[in-house]
């Protein structure tokens, strides 16, 4: 393999990993913008989506398309139920309380999945075959194209939802100014519920589409959550475009790091870059420092 071919392959790999991270980060962002909460159980939504899909297709033997939407629906409901049970009753909780509550929830989701589906790693057949597609000497799996396509579709749907529907606008309004939102008659608590449901749904989608290449087991969520959180912060919390861009940045850095420096230190390389960005520009790559400053006053 020539160096150029290798480089292209690293890029493809980075894009694949980055798309996965980006999808998880999107879920983080939606809840964060609507509520200011970092939901550390976000990774568990991803895991639940993947496991549910495998369960529906392999055990219940439903058709792929039906299982796809049904899994997303079920996980969305789980996300909503979680908000009602554990977040809704809280009165002005602190950041640390919320971190522990979402961690406790992730323990419960993990335990539930373990009991429901066991501890084995499962796989899902790719949506359209496993024959790798060769591009200029590098290869890419059809499933990666699915991931990129579905991610693009998700981002597009999110843009449509937040930009063109009343409910989407109302959610953004809540994020921008809660008092004003209730002044125009928006039920802020409903929007919080919705944000949890939505990010659970997006997490589940991510879980379903990555399972054919990354596999899935009950214990996967935490790591995905950590990566997703890093990406969300790097992109600037609350910025969806930032999440996608940062996802690709981290993914490509990991794959280049593994290829050219050291596979053992690849995660560390990405994290060092993240730290440097935080130290130099505390609001993330695409987060607005000025807006953050305004919020303080």
């Amino acid at each position, binding site marked *: 393999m020539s160096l150029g071919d290798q480089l292209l392959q690293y890029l493809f790999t980075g894009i*694949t990993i980055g798309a996965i991270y980006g999808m998880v980060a999107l879920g983080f962002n939606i809840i964060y913008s609507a509520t200011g909460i970092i939901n550390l159980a976000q990774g568990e939504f991803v895991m639940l989506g993947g496991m549910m899909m495998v369960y529906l297709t392999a055990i219940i033997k439903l058709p792929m398309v039906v299982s796809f939407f049904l899994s997303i629906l079920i996980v969305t409901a789980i996300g909503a139920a979680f908000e009602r049970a554990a977040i809704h009753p809280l009165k002005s909780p602190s950041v640390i309380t919320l971190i522990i509550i979402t961690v406790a929830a992730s323990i419960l989701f993990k335990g539930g999945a373990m009991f429901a589906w066991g501890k*084995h*790693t499962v796989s899902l057949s790719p949506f359209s075959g496993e024959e790798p597609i*060769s591009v200029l000497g590098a290869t890419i799996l059809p499933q990666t194209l699915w991931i990129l396509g579905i991610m693009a579709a998700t981002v597009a749907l999110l843009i449509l939802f937040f930009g063109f529907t009343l409910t989407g606008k109302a959610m953004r309004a809540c994020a921008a100014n809660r008092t004003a939102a209730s002044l125009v008659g928006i039920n802020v608590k409903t929007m919080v519920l919705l944000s949890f449901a939505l990010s659970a749904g997006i997490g589940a989608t991510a879980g379903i589409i990555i399972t054919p290449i990354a*596999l899935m087991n009950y214990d996967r969520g935490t790591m995905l959550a950590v990566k997703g959180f890093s990406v969300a912060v790097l992109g600037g919390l609350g910025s969806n475009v930032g999440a996608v861009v940062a996802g690709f940045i981290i993914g490509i850095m990991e*794959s280049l790091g593994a290829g050219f420096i050291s*596979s053992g230190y690849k995660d560390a390389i990405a994290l060092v870059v993240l730290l440097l960005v935080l130290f130099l520009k505390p609001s993330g790559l695409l987060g607005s420092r000025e807006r953050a400053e305004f919020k303080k006053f």
Partner: protein
Amino acid sequence: MRKKGKIVVGVVVAIVIVLLLVGPLSIWRWVPVLRKPAVAYKVGAIFAVTGPAAWLGTPERNTAKMIEEEVNAAGGINGHPLEIIIEDTVGDATRTVTAAKKLITKDQVLAIVGPSRSGTTMAVIPIVEEAKVPLISCAAAEAIVVPVKSWVFKTPQKDSHAAVRIYETMKLQGISKIAIITGTTGFGDQGRKQLKKLAPELEIEIVADETYGPDDTDMTAQLTKIKASEAQAVVNWSIVPGQVIVAKNMRQLGMKIPLFQSHGFGNIKYAQTAGEAGEGIIFPCGRLLAVDTLADDHPQKEVLAKYKKEYEAKYEEDVSTFGGHAWDGLHLVIAALREVGPDREKIRDYIENTKNFVGTGGIFNFSPEDHSGLTKDAFEMLTVKNEKFVVLE
């Protein structure tokens, strides 16, 4: 009203917690009625039942429960019921140490089987050595029994034997330059060391040496590097699910060179999960997974067939070599108990002198110099054909 309700719930939670707090420290100790009758032979088992290595610990736990039922249904050991106390390590060294101390000092077990993982085993070795309790580990790393520790045994085949078998197979196929890729866990790390140590002896040159983390989702970057090297084969040494991804990624990159796996591949689920990409993988393994292809007069045939049949009937899942390691360890202890009774030192001596013990992993011949008991012949080289394990021709 709501506020009052919350306070009540708070009080209840507080009380429950106080009870829980007091529980392990007092109830068992101060209320002798709750103690188990002393006549039972107690054997400890420490497995990674939950946590990242749960798929390893679960078949071990299942096997232990199955054996306990079986033995007790047959009237116990010389009339004494067998009690296997199973503790979960969560795959964490600290929890394992505490579990071992609990078994040794509180439950006063006669011997311990487990832990499941190499790292956790290394953590409990000083404890059992000091407390003088026989430990039969279900983890593979060679360092567990090399150098020999007087109270520590292990049932899985040795890493070095696996590496030698892999290298020997390679030489038969005319391969001399290879790439290795290992998981960053205790097992993967030990394997990497053995592979690198034994390579010169067997005239194998390692031209690429890559690793991946237990939670990595994609290894194409490492494999691209390997592809660019002049490796004629890849050895992937790990127990984590990532080993399946390696196979899939190799297929994606169109790498036609053979993939060798370690004995950590010994679960048919992996072959199934890998699907097409798994075809043709070669790996060393005990004969449990290829029992159907064994000749009827093979000395292990009966033991293997019986374990496989019973396990699969009881738990409705495929048998794996990991459960087999627990089977071997527990039956060694049971045999010792049957012969020498409840005495830790005598049990140790008995195991150390066990010869020709037919287990799932092979025929064990322990000696004061060898606490592993198996030779490299315990391994059969298997390959994957149509999502099944068959003996490599």
